[in-house]
């Protein structure tokens, strides 16, 4: 069920209505849990079992970990949890990729392994990581084990973040379990404001840009250098507005019920180095990779050389998390290499600092170029794109997509507002809007609609999305991961 569909709005309205009815807290949690299962089953009911099996396995393993102080036994249960999750993820996401590559290696022997055609369950990369974080945190004694099976199932299945994140950790979500569930005026205002901004990013920017990016990436050999750059920049903005828009909608939806989900994006294209970029881009994934993979590999505790290797490994696996393809591995490798290089620079030349503007421009150029292997379907397209970008391509078709100009304009306005307004409370009082902030979700804009100007702004925003939103209905990019 896509957030920008009528089906979802009807579903959301119904669940908000039901949770507004006075009933016991446990019953409301059961309602939310059941609705989340319906939400997931609406995609395909046969995969709901997978989601529930993962939640049962991790709940059980965490309980066994807590039941003993014997380190080898605790480690054994943790291993059981991680292996179960990775086995499920590996089978559904990577089996086809592995077998296809195996066939590539076996080509000289004349043998062939039959390739499995497996449908990737929606959101599997997100909910396995989410659930794994729980058993690891319980093992590390960072959080107390969840006492209620219902609470844990609700944490794993919670529909706003189920399909494409943010990857919510148990340590963030479980402490909110005792909050009253259901819509209040304040919750609806906060949630709907975030949702409106998110759907605006998706329909007014990302989906319009998809046309440009798709055209260029589908046949890079046809385009002139300038148009290929336009296509690449369009994709860089598309993926940002698509995914951050989705995250805004997810966080907004959760807020309507009274839950705070963590911030996932913080103006990443303003980063002045790659490390900063990963503190701003898909924050919940980069923090997950840092805390559960990089730290588990030894982090920076095992010497300089090992630190670089750990960085590279973390990013390679981070790339592979996005999709079963060598292009994603290349993307992860490039980011890992850049992170290692940045770290080495800081260690060997601590006093040498590049002016912030140049550092920002260089980072932006690097990150944008890295989207080429990420978006291209194969290496041949990646090479064709790079050749076109650097002027040695074959094509010369010239197209100046105007949608790119106004998308860049909208993103700049959004970034300027996001950079300056949160520090100036009351600056949007004339619109009856202000930046709200909580410790989990970060700053976000809240429209209160108590004045004529405020109501006008919200109504105009809704009408703009309705009349000028793209109608090509591109699926959310991160759904495929």
């Amino acid at each position, binding site marked *: 069920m896509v957030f920008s569909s009528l089906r979802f709005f009807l579903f959301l309205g119904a669940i908000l209505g039901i949770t507004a009815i006075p009933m016991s807290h446990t019953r409301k949690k059961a309602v939310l849990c059941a609705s989340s299962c319906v939400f997931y089953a609406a995609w395909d009911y046969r995969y709901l079992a997978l989601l529930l099996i993962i939640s049962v396995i991790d709940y059980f393993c965490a309980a066994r970990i807590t039941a003993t102080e014997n380190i080898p036994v605790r480690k054994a249960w943790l291993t059981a949890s991680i292996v179960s999750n990775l086995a499920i993820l590996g089978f559904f996401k990577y089996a086809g990729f592995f077998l296809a590559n195996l066939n590539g290696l076996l080509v000289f022997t004349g043998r062939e392994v039959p390739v499995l055609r497996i449908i990737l369950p929606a959101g599997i990369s997100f909910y396995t990581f989410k659930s794994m974080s729980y058993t690891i945190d319980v093992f590390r004694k960072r959080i107390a084990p969840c006492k209620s099976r219902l609470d844990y199932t609700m944490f794993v299945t919670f529909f706003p973040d189920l399909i494409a994140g943010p990857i919510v950790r148990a340590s963030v979500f479980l402490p909110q379990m005792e909050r009253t569930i259901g819509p209040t005026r304040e919750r609806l205002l906060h949630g709907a404001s975030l949702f409106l901004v998110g759907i605006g990013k998706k329909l007014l920017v990302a989906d319009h840009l998809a046309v440009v990016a798709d055209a260029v990436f589908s046949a890079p050999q046809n385009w002139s250098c300038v148009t290929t750059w336009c296509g690449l920049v369009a994709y860089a903005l598309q993926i940002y507005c698509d995914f951050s828009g989705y995250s805004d909608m997810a966080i907004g939806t959760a807020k309507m019920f009274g839950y705070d989900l963590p911030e996932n994006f913080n103006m990443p294209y303003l980063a002045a180095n790659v490390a900063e970029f990963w503190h701003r881009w898909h924050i919940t994934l980069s923090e997950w990779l840092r805390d559960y993979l990089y730290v588990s590999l030894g982090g920076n505790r095992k010497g300089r050389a090992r630190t670089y290797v750990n960085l590279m490994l973390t990013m390679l696996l981070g790339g592979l998390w996005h999709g079963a393809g060598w292009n994603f591995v290349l993307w992860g490798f490039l980011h890992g290499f850049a992170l290692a290089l940045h770290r080495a620079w800081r260690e060997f030349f601590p006093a040498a600092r590049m002016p912030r503007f140049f550092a920002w421009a260089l980072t932006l150029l690097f990150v944008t170029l890295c989207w080429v292997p990420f978006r291209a379907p194969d290496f041949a397209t990646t090479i064709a794109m790079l050749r076109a970008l650097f002027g040695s391509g074959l094509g010369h078709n010239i197209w100046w997509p105007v949608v790119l100009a106004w998308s860049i304009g909208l993103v700049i306005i959004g970034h300027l507002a996001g950079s300056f307004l949160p520090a100036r409370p009351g600056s949007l009082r004339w619109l009856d809007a202000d930046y709200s902030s909580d410790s989990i979700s970060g700053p976000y804009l809240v429209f209160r609609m108590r004045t004529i100007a405020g109501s006008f702004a919200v109504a105009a925003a809704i009408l703009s999305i309705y*009349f000028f939103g793209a109608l090509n209905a591109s699926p959310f990019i991160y759904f495929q991961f």
Partner: protein
Amino acid sequence: MRILSTFLRIAIGTLLALLAFEILLRHLSWSSSISESGHGSTEIYRLLEGWGVSHWDSRGIRVTPPKAGPVLLVVGDSYTESGHVDDDDVYTSRLQSLLGIKVLNDGLSTLSPADYLLAAPEVQTRFRPSWTIIELNAPDLSDDGFIDSKAHFLWREGKLVPTLAPQAKLGRISRLLARLRRRSALMNYGIARGTMFRALAQMPPLFRAADEAAPKPATPHPAFTPPVENELSLMTAAYGGRLTFLFIPEFNKEADVVEKRFLAHCAAARLSCVDLRVAFDDFRTRGRAPFGFPNSYFGQGHMNADGHRAAADLLAHELSSLRRRGLF
């Protein structure tokens, strides 16, 4: 009291936003799917797929500076109507400048050969053209002329007959909506957008999306053989043989069987025909496309100003030769 005052403020703010959009939308026609180009209005702005400003007279003729002498009538669909480009950029205006005679642009979105046939007696009486240009694009001569929701062809006793679309019987709500659509741009575009969203909302079936992802065997499509030659002969007869066909093929496709049959019939019947494909090589050499705009797709959709220029040049060449032969 406080609730009432808040409610009033919300209502006023929302009404003001609706009013602002009503004013804005009255001037815009941003999608070919919203085909109400408003010929009753004099000035139309397009927002998407080009950004032309066009002017129209009360007869639905695109306004061009007055000229004396013979009249050249152009009938066609949205490729001729061309709200996507400014008045001076449309091929009809360019043709008027190149030939120095009056060219009347009677193009209207969604029309097809059956309409040109049905309208032939009326437009000839009304405009008394010395010569007529009929613009045809690729689908016009194939399945577009056989869609029964608009004017279309029927086979009757072995003859091809143009027929009007059956008039739909409107219910009370549909009549009310139609009236509202005529009076309010907001309602008109709002309903049109709603229809588009509804079409898009055809999502995978609930609970079984994985089945959709599995490859399905292609269902064979029954072959349709369009009566290209019959359609062209009927139009030639209806306009007294005093016409030129302008054929607008697709840019990124090779000539298909319909286009080949069109050209073969033109040659066999010694008709005056112009095929825009002749100019395609020049576009490819320059890395340009005759179709598409910076705010739509490259090489797809309607003709841009470059495409119109090429069409006008080709037509001017053909029509000058006809004039030299004293045909009009």
